[in-house]
């Protein structure tokens, strides 16, 4: 055993392949810890985490992406106070006290170092006590001021020529100004835009307003009543949905591509493991029986294998699956077991042929004859003499068949004929090719990882398989 491990560890290709394989097994088994998301395709709360087609965070090292904003969420702090009222801050709330017609501006500094975000929002809680107050929210950059929204008691709204929003006096007002909900009916700034821009304001506002530079978020409070006014402002916050997200960016729904990749890895490896067991199981049994028993049995099994080898594989797969779907049988067995059964049931021929040929060569050796002469039954001979000698080939076949399953399954998913409701590598590629257009460019962070994962995993398994066959075969089965 030690000699074996020693031999294996002295092969560089094997070691590198093992590391790659272990990496994929790790991300597959740790998927639930690596990502909090369960299924970004069907659970809508796991989508819209950032802008659709957000780049990966680390891609900002490239100059063309360097100014892409990440998701931003910050508390607005240490405001500059301007105005003629009085103001105090007790650590949680800003208290503004104003006599009639006095005003007070809380101007929170905000330094923005990026290009425009996908969307932004400003939120705070206001509790006005008194007769009537106007609360305006503005964004200011040097000499440009964007008058985003204005809040006045609903009775006074009619007095204003620009759009306003209602404010309840004496109650808690949770105010959120989000670029996506601003329109010409609630925002003074949007209502001053030219007509065509007004209609798409929610989409273009971030572009109109944000450039790298120093901004200030101004909460301006004015007493428009006739009696003294006291306003509490809690938790002023600024947040922006960025255009750079996570390790692998986002897809067309703004869902995390990394989550999809990791979940896909888990799913693909699971399905590959089960289907490979089926393939090698069928191949091993048929191959052993055909090779060991020989005669008519061999002829029949060989003809059966040739039959399956002659039928064009992918068309058969597609035809069978369609029949199961139209006849409604898929509802009884489910798409995943069906895929495993079809792929497993149609890919065992190569394995069978190889196992048959090595069994044939082992069977004709003298030690098998000796064992027979000593009176061993066929099961004992297979167990004690044939199996140990073809073990290397069997392990190699396991390693060779996993890529076959992954490639076939990914191909079906890519075509939309396999699993469509859950992220798999094939699905990622399928959707990536369906949803990318010349307009949003080549979404490399979405297209490249699944393809490279398939290639790396397959090549690693290939080298592991051939090394195992080499090391575990007592006779040089591979014919050097």
């Amino acid at each position, binding site marked *: 055993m030690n000699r074996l491990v020693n031999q294996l560890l002295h092969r560089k290709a094997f070691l590198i392949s093992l590391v790659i394989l272990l990496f994929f097994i790790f991300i597959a088994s740790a998927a639930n810890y690596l990502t909090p998301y369960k299924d970004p395709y069907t659970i809508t709360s796991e989508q819209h985490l950032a802008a659709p087609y957000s780049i990966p965070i680390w891609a900002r090292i490239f100059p063309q992406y360097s100014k892409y904003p990440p998701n931003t969420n910050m508390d607005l702090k240490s405001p500059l106070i301007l105005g003629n009222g009085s103001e105090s801050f007790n650590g949680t709330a800003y208290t503004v006290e104003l006599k009639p017609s006095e005003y007070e501006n809380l101007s929170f500094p905000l330094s923005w170092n990026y290009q425009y975000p996908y969307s932004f929002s400003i939120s705070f809680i206001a509790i006005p006590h008194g007769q009537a107050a106007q609360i305006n929210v503005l964004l200011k950059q040097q000499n440009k001021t964007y008058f985003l929204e204005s809040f006045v008691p609903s009775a006074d709204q009619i007095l204003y020529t620009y759009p306003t929003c209602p404010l309840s006096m004496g109650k808690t007002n949770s105010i959120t100004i989000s670029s996506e909900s601003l329109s010409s009916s609630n925002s003074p700034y949007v209502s001053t835009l030219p007509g065509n821009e007004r209609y798409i304001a929610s989409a273009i506002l971030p572009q109109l307003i944000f450039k790298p530079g120093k901004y200030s978020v101004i909460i301006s409070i004015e007493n428009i009543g006739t009696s003294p006014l006291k306003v509490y402002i809690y938790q002023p916050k600024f947040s922006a949905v960025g255009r750079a997200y996570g390790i692998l960016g986002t897809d067309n729904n703004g869902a995390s591509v990394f989550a999809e990749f990791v979940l896909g890895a888990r799913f693909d490896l699971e399905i590959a493991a089960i289907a490979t067991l089926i393939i090698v199981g069928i191949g091993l049994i048929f191959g052993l029986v055909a090779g060991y028993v020989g005669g008519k049995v061999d002829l029949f099994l060989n003809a059966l294998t040739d*039959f399956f080898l*002659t039928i064009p594989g992918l068309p058969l797969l597609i035809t069978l699956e369609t029949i199961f779907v139209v006849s409604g049988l898929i509802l009884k067995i489910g798409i995943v077991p069906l895929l495993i059964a079809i792929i497993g049931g149609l890919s065992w021929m190569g394995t069978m042929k190889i196992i048959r040929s090595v069994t044939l060569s082992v069977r004709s050796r003298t030690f098998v004859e000796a064992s027979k002469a000593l009176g061993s039954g066929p099961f004992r001979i297979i167990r004690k003499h044939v199996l140990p000698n073809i073990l290397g080939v069997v392990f190699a076949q396991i390693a060779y068949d996993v890529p076959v399953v992954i490639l076939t399954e990914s191909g079906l998913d890519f075509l939309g004929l396999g699993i469509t409701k859950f992220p798999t590598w094939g699905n990622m590629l399928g959707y990536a090719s369906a949803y990318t257009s010349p307009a949003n460019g080549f979404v490399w962070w979405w297209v490249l990882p699944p393809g490279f994962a398939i290639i790396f995993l397959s090549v690693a398994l*290939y080298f592991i398989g051939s090394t195992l066959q080499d090391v575990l075969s007592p006779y040089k089965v591979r014919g050097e």
Partner: protein
Amino acid sequence: MRFSVPWRYLVKRIIERIILLIVIINFLFLIIYIIPIYVAHLNPAEFYVPLSYKGLSRSTEVEAIDREFGLNQPIFVQYIDYVKNMLTFHFGYSLIYDEPVSKIILQALPVDLIILVPSLILSTVFAIGLGLFSAVRFGRLSDSINTFFAILTYFIPGFWVLIIFLQIFGFQLGLFPTNIAQALISPSGAPLHGWAYIAGLIKFSIAPIIILALLAYGVRMALTRSYGVESMGSSYVTYLRAKGIPERSVVYKHVMRNAIIPAITRTGIDFAFVIAGSVFVEDIFGFYGMGELLYRSALTFNVQILGDAFYILSLYVIVVLLVLDFIYPLIDPRVKYE
């Protein structure tokens, strides 16, 4: 060398292939008739009827189809009809396409050959060239790198490379037309004719041809390499070298003849299965061949066309394999007629 026609071998092969064909027809009957009727309790006529056809109600259509196609007959009568129809290529009429099925299939079949056959030839050229390159340099670094890339091509998903290529060079850089319709019209929108049509076709198909060839040469390259290495070590090569024949002549005149046989044989087999594997390239580059026909039928649950297209693909495979059985002994006289 006297060449006698090996009748026994020919007859045996032909009978084998005919049995295979009959098994495939039975298999298709099983999945298209038996499974829906006896396992899923469906009327197969449902598969043939579009959602609406010339304003008739669906039940009327199903009844009419039942009578027209004999689907209300006992199952053994249907079976005999089915086998007869398949063997005589009477595929009936597709109500969904409103065209005879055989016409639809005949339109799709030649489209494949524009791209698949040239790419097969090109990949064989790559395989033989790179295989001999490696065989001559056996054990050196250049051989290892070359072989590694050949192994890599086994595992590169073709559709992945095709979409990357299409997106970067087709959509981003606009270097070549991204679908066949775009390739066959002039910039003003008029359809092309004559030489311009052929030029458009070539411009469109050159990229998929090269990509497919690069993705498919691996297996044949490995074959050429291993047989080449074997030949290089054999005693006739030692003898030729001892005789003073220049190395170049040894490789290209003597070793190559032996080393390319498996690659050529394999090309024949790949030619048999080439249409079967064309689904991805046809779907991505949007041209309507057999693969795309099969795929569209699967997506729209058009079981009628699916079954017939599958039958034609299998028939194609069987015919090509049968032809190959006869050609192999001519290519390699060492192949014995059993």
